[in-house]
């Protein structure tokens, strides 16, 4: 990319950087002289370039003046001077708008210049041409592209590639030439004196040409398939990176159309055995990535070969290869750790690799593939290791250990010991320590047994901690968790020490923490001693500390006077629920922007979703687990073939904006959407008297994602009502849909317990727009489950392209369209929730229900587990959401709470796979007997 990127690395030992204004003046004088002194001008240009490479910039008018003076050098026919002129024009083009003035001169060089300057001239066309002038270079570029000279041909291809976003119309006409350039093997002109030292070709042109063809055809599946079939099987592609590119194209094809995978299997086998390491790597990456999303389509044998290939690459001499193989294995280890375990011997020997990147990666993988058996021995290995690596690697290791605590809650002791050891004895900066503290906070949150040990050690840690932010976090944690510990006064003492010894930020945080002990613990003597401490603090010299102490005293006072649990003070100091922040934020900002009575109406918080502590933990745990999984797909993007990352994203954006949001939106966005939809619903007048929104389901697809009209449904549950929301997207480009209505019919109308109240249709759905149609029902019982057959009806109207309105006389066509069944199931009434000690809770719950199922479809255990998690809306616990791939049985543990009344429900589901299918035994326990049997009996 830009020469600017390596600016910082050019150390001062490379000589003094010339003075900017001196160079500027010299350029203006020298370049305008007649005749031109080419040697002096060349030196001057190289100094100018050096300046720019060092990150120096010129104002636009200076750059323009420089450009015009440089352009005068075109009068001198000297190839080496001309090459530098081109470099300078390319650099100045980033600042000056006027470089188009060089167009004619450049084109002349493209046509008549020597082979030496032609490639430079061609490449600089990229910076001077625009939409209106690109066509004038078409003929020149085409003949350069088919040139026998590889450098010239490559330059033309690269230029076209970069011009594509500028002038798609022109570049579209280049596909024949590009195709020819892939096939044509080009050699450097032979110079007999040099053959010994120089290769006669690198065949890089093939790579460039393939990149261009791909950009031209990337939306045309058939054309890409043809391309792959033409080149993949034979040996016509000599360039190594062109071959890698081909693998990437196949990767994209199979990810878009998974059914294609099978037909490519022989090819993959072949590629895994290719002589180039890069091709083996890319293919293994393709297979393992694809396996993560479509496990059933990958033949187990092929998958094992891919792993074996990676395993082999772990012990090759080339560092980059070892590193890449590790990266792929690392991602794999997050989803299917058991598959990676075969590489453990190699990984263990890499711990001592002299390259620290490699050893760190090896360790993190080992940590992820670790089983309950070897965790503690691994931890003792890294305890020695971690003190020797740099901060960055330490953080990577800490993160890996942190995931361990989520995956092996039963190993919390050795994990916590490790974290405490590095916290107290490890050398490192803020980020490192903060990560450790965060990891400990995680352990405390998700493994309740660990609480006391963690808190005590954190208390020791804050006795000598230099980072304010970390201290404040620990104090907050102590205030939150300390009051319910067995010996609260221990923590009170530590906190009070901070008040005596630290700065005002920490003193303020301590005050809050202290007051929590007084309020939430019903212990009079403790309360009294805290009150006397706070009274002392109320004389602090800092305003904030004083204010907090005073208000805390007031709160404590009121909370002792009233019933403690219901008091305002208690709610403020020790909240039991938290607002959904995304929803709160959007409501607040619309409150601010829509304010038209100078804030006379107070902000209304009642409609904002609230989460209880357990719900919040469930959400956090899910998010963390997803982040782990995400690692797998972090490189999904990367695998789509691209020659270079372009700074200008115009092209990409234009294509993307045409396609509406894809069906697999990522989880975080999904949550935002959920919030958005429920906010929209709650703000509509029609639903005002339905009361509080109890729960909203996940978005379910009701059509194929590539249908003309894409429909997705959401079920909103109220106390006495149910609302179905149908989001409909019109993917047509020239037709509007009027009066769009979804008619929803219960599958068994006689037995339906839902009474349809009203429908809110979509008046007009324009092309590529999304809108929602709502249907509201009243329900008689708490939990109603039913299935609905749905049809959308609408009137299509053709649009006048001029006005984007339907043609005046067009009455339109009535049309209808059947979509998938929508199920209102027990899971829709459940919210996932976290519980620290699943087994104990499960045993305690009073009502039990057992059901047995047989699934005859051919489906993997993992797929069943995924479906169960979705259909029950429960949170998988103890890491049971992952099925080890080499087993035929699995136990899934799920926990949730009724969205209506918060009663607990827990499930243990045993799955066994045999040749006949999958047998499933679900055991449910719950506070509420009906909920229990509803859930257990309607699992599938």
């Amino acid at each position, binding site marked *: 990319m830009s020469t600017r990127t390596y600016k910082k690395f050019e150390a001062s030992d490379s000589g003094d950087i010339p003075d900017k204004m001196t160079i500027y003046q010299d350029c203006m004088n020298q370049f*305008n002289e*007649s*005749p031109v002194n080419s040697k002096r001008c060349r030196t001057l240009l190289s100094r100018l370039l050096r300046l720019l490479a060092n990150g120096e910039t010129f104002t636009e008018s200076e750059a323009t003046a420089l450009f*015009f003076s440089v*352009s*005068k050098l*075109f*009068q001198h*026919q000297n190839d080496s001077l001309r090459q530098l002129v081109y470099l300078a024009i390319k650099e100045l083009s980033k600042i000056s708008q*006027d470089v*188009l*003035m*060089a*167009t*004619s*001169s450049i084109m*002349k060089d493209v046509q008549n210049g020597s082979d030496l300057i032609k490639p430079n001239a061609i490449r600089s066309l990229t910076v001077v041409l625009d939409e209106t*002038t690109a066509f*004038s270079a078409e003929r020149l570029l085409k003949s350069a592209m088919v040139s026998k000279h590889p450098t010239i041909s490559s330059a033309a291809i690269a230029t076209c590639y970069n011009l594509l976003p500028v002038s798609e119309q022109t570049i579209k006409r280049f596909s024949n030439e590009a195709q020819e350039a892939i096939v044509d093997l080009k050699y450097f002109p032979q110079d007999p004196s040099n053959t010994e030292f120089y290769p006669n070709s690198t065949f890089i042109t093939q790579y460039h040409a393939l990149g261009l063809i791909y950009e031209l055809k990337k939306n045309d599946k058939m054309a890409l398939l043809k391309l792959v079939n033409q080149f993949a099987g034979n040996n016509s592609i000599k360039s190594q990176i062109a071959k890698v590119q081909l693998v990437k194209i196949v990767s994209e094809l199979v990810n878009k159309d998974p059914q294609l995978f099978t037909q490519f299997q022989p090819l993959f086998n072949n590629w895994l055995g290719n002589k180039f390491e890069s091709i083996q790597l890319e293919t293994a990456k393709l297979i393992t990535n694809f396996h993560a999303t479509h496990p059933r389509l990958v033949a187990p044998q092929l998958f094992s070969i891919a792993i074996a290939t990676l395993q082999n690459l772990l012990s090759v001499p080339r560092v980059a290869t070892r590193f890449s193989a590790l990266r792929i294995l690392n991602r794999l280890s997050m989803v299917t750790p058991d598959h990676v375990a075969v590489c453990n011997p190699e990984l263990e020997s890499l711990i001592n690799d002299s390259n620290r990147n490699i050893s760190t990666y090896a360790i993190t993988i080992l940590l992820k593939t670790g089983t309950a058996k070897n965790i503690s021995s691994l931890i003792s290995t890294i305890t020695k290791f971690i003190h020797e690596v740099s901060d960055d690697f330490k953080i990577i290791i800490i993160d890996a250990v942190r995931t361990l605590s989520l995956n092996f809650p039963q190993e919390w002791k050795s994990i916590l010991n490790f974290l405490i050891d590095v916290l107290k004895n490890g050398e490192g900066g803020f980020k490192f320590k903060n990560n450790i503290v965060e990891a400990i906070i995680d352990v405390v949150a998700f493994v309740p047994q660990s609480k006391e040990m963690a808190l005590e050690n954190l208390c020791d840690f804050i006795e000598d901690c230099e980072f304010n932010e970390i201290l404040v976090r620990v104090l907050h944690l102590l205030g939150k968790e300390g009051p319910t510990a067995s010996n609260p006064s221990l923590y009170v003492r530590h906190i009070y020490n901070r008040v005596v010894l630290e700065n005002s930020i920490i003193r303020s945080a301590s005050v809050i923490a202290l007051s929590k002990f007084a309020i939430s613990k019903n212990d009079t003597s403790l309360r009294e001693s805290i009150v006397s401490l706070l009274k002392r603090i109320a004389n602090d010299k800092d305003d904030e500390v004083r204010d907090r102490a005073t208000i805390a005293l007031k709160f404590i006072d009121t909370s002792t006077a009233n019933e403690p649990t219901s008091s305002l003070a208690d709610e403020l100091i020790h909240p039991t629920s938290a607002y959904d922040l995304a929803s709160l934020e959007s409501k607040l900002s619309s409150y601010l922007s829509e304010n038209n009575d100078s804030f006379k109406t107070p902000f209304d918080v009642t409609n904002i979703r609230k989460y209880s502590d357990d719900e919040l933990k469930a959400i956090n745990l899910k998010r963390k687990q997803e982040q782990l999984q995400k690692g797998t797909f972090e490189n999904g993007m990367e695998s789509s073939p691209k020659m270079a990352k372009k700074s200008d994203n115009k092209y990409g954006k234009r294509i993307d904006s045409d396609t509406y949001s894809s069906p697999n939106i990522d989880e975080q966005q999904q949550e935002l959407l959920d919030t958005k939809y429920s906010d929209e619903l709650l703000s509509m007048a029609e639903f005002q008297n339905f009361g509080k929104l109890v729960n909203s389901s996940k978005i379910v697809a009701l059509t194929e994602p590539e249908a003309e009209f894409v429909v997705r449904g959401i079920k909103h549950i109220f106390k006495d009502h149910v609302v179905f929301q149908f989001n409909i997207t019109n993917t047509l480009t020239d037709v509007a849909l009027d009066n769009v209505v979804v008619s929803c019919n219960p599958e068994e109308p006689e037995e339906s317990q839902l009474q349809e109240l009203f429908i809110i249709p979509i008046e007009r759905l324009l092309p590529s727009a999304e809108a929602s149609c709502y249907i509201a029902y009243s329900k008689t019982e708490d939990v109603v489950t039913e299935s609905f057959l749905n049809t959308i009806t609408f009137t299509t109207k053709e649009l006048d392209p001029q006005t984007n309105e339907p043609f005046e006389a067009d009455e339109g066509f009535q049309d209808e369209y059947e979509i998938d069944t929508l199920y209102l199931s027990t899971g829709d009434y459940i919210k996932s929730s976290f519980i620290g000690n699943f087994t104990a809770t499960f045993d305690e719950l009073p009502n039990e229900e057992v059901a047995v199922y047989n699934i005859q479809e051919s489906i993997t255990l993992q797929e069943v587990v995924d479906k169960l998690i979705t259909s029950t809306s429960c949170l998988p616990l103890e890491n049971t959401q992952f099925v080890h791939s080499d087993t035929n049985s699995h136990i899934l543990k799920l926990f949730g709470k009724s969205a209506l009344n918060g009663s607990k429900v827990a499930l243990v589901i045993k799955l066994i796979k045999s040749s006949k299918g999958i047998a499933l035994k679900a055991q449910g326990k719950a506070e509420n007997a009906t909920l229990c049997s509803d859930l257990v009996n309607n699992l599938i």
Partner: protein
Amino acid sequence: MGNYFSSMFDKLWGSNKEIRILILGLDGAGKTTILYRLQIGEVVTTKPTIGFNVETLTYKNLKLNVWDLGGQTSIRPYWRCYYTDTAAVIFVVDSTDKDRMSTASKELHMMLQEEELQDSALLVFANKQDQPGALTASEVSKELNLVELKERSWSIVASSAIKGEGITEGLDWLIDVIKEEQL
């Protein structure tokens, strides 16, 4: 030593000094055609000039540095970036393009007002004389208001770049003027 002599020699014969000449005029007037007629003596097929062409040619023992600047409206503002050290301007007019005579005249006079061009000689080619209905040189001269020009050596020559007529006559006059002024 050798260098010293050769540069003495060059100075005496004036062949080291390059003479800067600009060819200006509206788009399509025939500037690029004239430049290459001068350089290679042939008619080349041209495309609208986006930017400029520059060629060095030797004419009557003089080294000429000839700049042909594009004439489109979008390019005209850039002419002034190339005015420095210009010995002469050749202004080319399409004699058949009566509609744009006034535009040509306006551009010409605006350019001549520039400080940097005060000492430059002006040669106007009333080009495309081979075409029926072309205005004559004196008609073009009137349209361009050339008589108004004081304190400047100027001349107008009827030409056809395609047929190669008038070009050398015009250039001969220009060279004479330049030589005179430089002596």
